């Protein structure tokens, strides 16, 4: 099972559900890595998988841990399925797809938090309510973290604390999440006692 149970945390920390087929004129599905399992489970739950596939567009990319299930996604036989080389190139394609999709489209995001968060951010920016976007976490728990000091975002953060890839500060990774930035917040851990940095612990895999 590639599903992750996150321990209870502050309200800001996103929680995820399970993708459920919903009636719609079109189905837009964005996934990375182990998210492929959730996409396959989604169609397995559909009352009429063939007609749902005929109205589906799947955008997929490999996960940050290298998991690549593209063959299984391609084998589903959706009306359109595209593999992107990376998350940024997937988001570039998503932006184009979003120009044409109509209200009545169901949106499903699955995989890692970095991918889901950034897709959600781009969809929200068009005025679509975030609470109507379905999300299911699968696979890696590495985090996308914004340094609250220099505002630089570091992708695929594994340890806490970690060193900001932009300004070099040592950052404590909070569960405080920004939907607008699609990132967790990283705060300088040795601001008061410069140099007193606890050894990094691998908290996200």
């Amino acid at each position, binding site marked *: 099972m590639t599903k992750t149970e996150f321990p209870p945390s502050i309200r800001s920390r996103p929680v995820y559900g399970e993708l459920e087929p*919903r*009636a*719609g*004129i079109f189905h837009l599905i964005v996934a990375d890595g182990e998210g492929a399992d959730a996409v396959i489970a989604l169609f397995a739950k559909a009352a009429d998988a063939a007609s749902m596939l005929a109205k589906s567009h799947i955008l997929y990319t490999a996960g940050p841990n290298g998991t690549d299930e593209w063959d299984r996604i391609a084998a589903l036989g959706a009306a359109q399925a595209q593999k992107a080389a990376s998350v940024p190139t997937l988001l570039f394609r998503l932006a184009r797809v*979003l120009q044409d*999709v*109509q*209200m*009545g*489209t*169901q949106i499903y995001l699955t995989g890692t938090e970095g991918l889901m968060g950034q897709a959600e951010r781009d*969809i*929200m920016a*068009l*005025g*679509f*309510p975030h*609470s*109507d976007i379905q999300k299911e976490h699968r696979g890696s728990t590495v985090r996308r973290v914004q340094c609250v000091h220099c505002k630089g975002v570091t992708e695929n953060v594994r340890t806490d604390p970690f060193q900001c890839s932009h300004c070099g500060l040592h950052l404590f990774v909070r569960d405080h999440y920004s939907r607008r930035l699609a990132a967790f917040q990283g705060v300088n851990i040795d601001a008061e006692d410069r140099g007193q940095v606890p050894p990094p612990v691998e908290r996200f895999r």
Partner: protein
Amino acid sequence: MSGGPKLNVRVAEVVKVNDLITRFRFVARDGGLLPAFSGGAHTVVEMDDNGTRRLNPYSLMSDPEDRTGYEISVRRDDAGRGGSLYMHRHVRPGMDMVLSHPVNLFPLDNRARKHLFIAGGIGITPFLAMTRQLARFGGRFELHYATRNPALCAYGDSLKAAHGDRVHLYFDEQGDTLPLADLLSRQPLGTHLYCCGPKGMLNWVRSAAATAGWATHAVHFEEFTAPATGAPFAVTLERSGKTLTVGSTQSLLEAMEAAGVDAPYLCRGGACGQCETDVVRCDGRIDHRDHWLTPEDMATNTKIMPCVSRFEGRTLVIDR
């Protein structure tokens, strides 16, 4: 005092719009500016109808940028509880009246890429303010407005003149039907839908939007409805130590107010949640007519919204 601070106004204009609808303009008695409001807001108009105090909510239809006055349009309801008849028969220019501050339970979601408005009959009023607001901000919208016939299509001509192709009119008696399913199927992602009209239209739009797979939070309804009439019933107010009878054209909230009980309220139409009251004992059936309580609260009869809901049965005791 319940309902918040009041606005002391004077009726500046009374204009008959058509056979059913009359427009009223209110200005501040001190000649100053009225509080700002946003499209979709309503005000509660206080009326003294021969000793009966009526407080009816009406959508503000004037330009939100115009703070020199507020305008409302009132449709005469001959079978209603009497508020609209009072407005039509007794309200004249120069009269002093009292309004609540504007409250908006039907605001524009300004994150939307596009706004799709669906109006039926007098339900056009909030959209008059919203379209003016959007025209100033450059917001993208489409208005679809259904009425019985051109004579009853209040403000149809002025809307057409102001917004041209963005306004679509439909006349039931000419067999024009608002092409709802078609409209819902060709809106860009990020469109928000707003509907104000008779109950049948609200239900129609609600179910069509669900069938079309529209995002729940992108669909907005003007929910408040004038309290309907019903059989008289008795109620005991535990904290006040009073037992009252609610008349057939009176709401429970109005009956409490008439008995000198200061009960909370805001919209007086079952939408805002301000008047929510705990039920201490209920031997009978509460006729829940609000849009506020959860289905669980309604089923267990543990709460009541006195502004619209009624009761049938032996005993009702509420915590007021």
